[in-house]
């Protein structure tokens, strides 16, 4: 290869664009709110466009993944960025949920503290980098970037509750990062490389004497990822931290647990495929049973939570559990359905976190009498007049059956759609994902299963029961929010707050309407995940660009 087309350099954009934007945002200073907001939205939009272009490109390119050598060093020594279908999907998801959260924050939250916009861009940079990197130590660095940004974002808005949960969140993540380092060091010590593809290639040749060390390293690394993914019993930090975070931040955090899932999926399928000899499917049982315990914990947690915010957090835990358990079986059909479920539940959870704030705002009116707060720095968000005043008929009696206010109708509809997706009920995308998983679990023709039939049937039952539990929990909250209150003033919503929720839920609906191409894409993604040699060959085949010296005439 002697040169790269301009479009090949696009692979660097998901990392460089947020970094450059964050720098400019920092330089702009704290005072120029409008300029900062416009720049941030423009950059995030551009990031989403880049992610979609990359996704379409990787889809048409065929099985080989796109590889980019940022430092132009030969492969096992230099830094590698790789893009396959899974990474492209995660890029699009991160950009979409990021854009929605950002739009939502423009209504109020981005002024609630300093440096929201730069931190937000750095968060995106960390996410994108973690999805793109093909190098174990860079994965650590990008994890730290996204975690450092998330510490700042979690503290955004201030207050004792946020500071207290931040302290716990930071401590847990620092310990997990240390475990990450130990795991990386052990794997480097055994295989002598940090490039993931190179490592996967060398693993079958590791001598028997070193196998124990190798497995210990992989397990320690796995614990670090599982702690970030929110797997039971490492997830006690998740619900308080996500519940305390401000709404747009919690919505971005819905993506953070997926980074842990992504890392497990990427490393585990590459390093321990069925063909790996004595290490084949190492840790599959831990993933399957741990995932099921997480799913059960999440479902029970959803049922026990009184606040919608906590309920959304536990739904994230349940999603993580479902994904880990299905990944652990190591079957392409199951993984494809899990990826579909991942996409739809990420979008729905992001929308749910945004919705939580609007619903809580509507509820505050019930308990507290409306106060005139026009002079405050923040705009008041509810009609100061009660609805009983407005919503009277000729006899000055509230009219039952009168058209409900548009804002309430929007909230109700959005909540219903989000709940359907999260609980996995038909006709929305959560159902398609769950149905795919269930039918893949029923497929008895698959010759070898990573785990035994007991695990298969337990997961089958657990998926159905958890769906039931989460729909009960969501329905209960829905009744309390929308049907129980009698005369409640309609919450005043802003376009900036409704638009992202509408877009996210629209994307969930689109996933069903265009379900066939989406499923085809995800099946291809899962197929190539379970054929690691494609990824390894693509990375190994990458050659540095040789600059041909210009010959002067």
């Amino acid at each position, binding site marked *: 290869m002697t040169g790269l087309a301009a479009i090949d350099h696009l692979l660097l954009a998901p990392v460089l664009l947020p970094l450059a934007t964050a720098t400019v945002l920092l330089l702009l200073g704290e005072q120029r709110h409008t300029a900062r907001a416009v720049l941030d939205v423009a950059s995030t939009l551009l990031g989403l466009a880049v992610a979609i272009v990359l996704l379409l490109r990787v889809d048409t390119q065929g099985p080989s993944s796109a590889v980019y050598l940022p430092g132009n060093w030969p492969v096992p020594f230099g830094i590698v960025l790789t893009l396959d279908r899974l990474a492209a999907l995660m890029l699009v998801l991160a950009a979409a949920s990021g854009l929605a959260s950002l739009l939502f924050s423009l209504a109020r939250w981005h002024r609630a503290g300093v440096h929201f916009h730069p931190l937000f861009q750095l968060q995106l940079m960390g996410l994108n980098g973690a999805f793109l990197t093909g190098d174990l130590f860079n994965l650590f660095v990008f994890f730290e970037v996204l975690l*450092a940004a998330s510490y700042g974002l979690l*503290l955004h808005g201030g207050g004792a509750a946020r*500071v207290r949960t931040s*302290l716990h969140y*930071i401590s847990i993540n620092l310990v997990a*990062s*240390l475990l990450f380092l*130990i795991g990386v060091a052990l794997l480097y010590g055994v295989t002598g490389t940090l490039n993931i593809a190179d490592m996967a290639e060398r693993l079958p040749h590791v001598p028997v004497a070193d196998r124990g060390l190798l497995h210990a390293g992989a397990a320690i690394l796995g614990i670090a990822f599982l702690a970030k993914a929110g797997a039971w019993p490492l997830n006690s930090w998740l619900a308080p931290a996500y519940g305390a975070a401000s709404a747009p931040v919690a919505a971005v955090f819905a993506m953070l647990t997926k980074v842990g899932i992504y890392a497990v999926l990427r490393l585990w399928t590459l390093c321990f495929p069925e063909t790996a000899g004595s290490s084949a499917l190492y840790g599959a049982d831990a993933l399957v049973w741990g995932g099921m315990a997480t799913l059960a914990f999440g479902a029970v947690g959803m049922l026990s939570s009184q606040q919608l915010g906590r309920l959304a957090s536990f739904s994230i835990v349940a999603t993580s559990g479902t994904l880990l358990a299905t990944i652990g079986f190591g079957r392409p059909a199951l993984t494809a359905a899990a990826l579909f479920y991942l996409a739809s539940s990420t979008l729905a959870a992001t929308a749910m976190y945004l919705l939580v704030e609007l619903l809580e705002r509507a509820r505050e009116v019930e308990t507290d009498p409306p106060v005139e707060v026009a002079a405050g720095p923040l705009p008041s968000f509810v009609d100061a007049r009660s609805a009983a005043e407005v919503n009277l008929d000729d006899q000055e009696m509230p009219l039952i059956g009168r058209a409900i206010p548009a804002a309430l109708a929007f909230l109700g509809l959005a909540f219903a759609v989000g709940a359907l997706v999260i609980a996995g009920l038909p006709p929305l995308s959560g159902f398609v994902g769950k149905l795919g998983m269930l039918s893949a679990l029923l497929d008895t023709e698959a010759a070898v299963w990573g785990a035994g039939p007991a695990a298969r049937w337990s997961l089958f039952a657990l998926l159905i029961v958890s769906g039931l539990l989460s729909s009960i929990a969501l329905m209960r909250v829905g009744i309390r929010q929308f049907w129980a209150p009698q005369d409640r003033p309609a919450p005043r919503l802003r376009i900036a707050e409704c638009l992202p929720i509408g877009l996210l839920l629209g994307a969930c609906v689109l996933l069903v309407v265009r379900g066939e191409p989406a499923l085809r894409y995800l099946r291809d993604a899962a197929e190539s995940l379970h054929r690691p040699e494609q990824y390894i060959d693509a990375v190994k085949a990458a050659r540095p660009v040789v600059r041909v010296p210009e010959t002067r005439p």
Partner: protein
Amino acid sequence: MEVVVSLAVGVLVASGVWLVLRPRTFQVLIGLSLLSYAVNLFIFSIGSLAIDKEPIVQAGQAADLLHYTDPIPQALVLTAIVISFATTALYLVVLLALRGLTDSDHVDGEEERP
């Protein structure tokens, strides 16, 4: 030398874990620092311990670990030190903020009730 390094790592990890599990925020901070020192030493030892060797391949000598020391763990340690320094500083800020907001240095912001 291996024994000395492993003992150092072991002692650091043991003290670090004990301190991280303590209820005071400052103890947790020191515990996290000790743990990160231990991890740094551990990474360093992964590249085979050697005294007085340069991480540079000399001309005329075979490029194996008998003749030079592996530079990659040293580079990793450098990165890890920088990152753990930054996160420790951040943790310190949050610690002080919690102290100011709740008037308590307990990790939960309030003393345990007996």
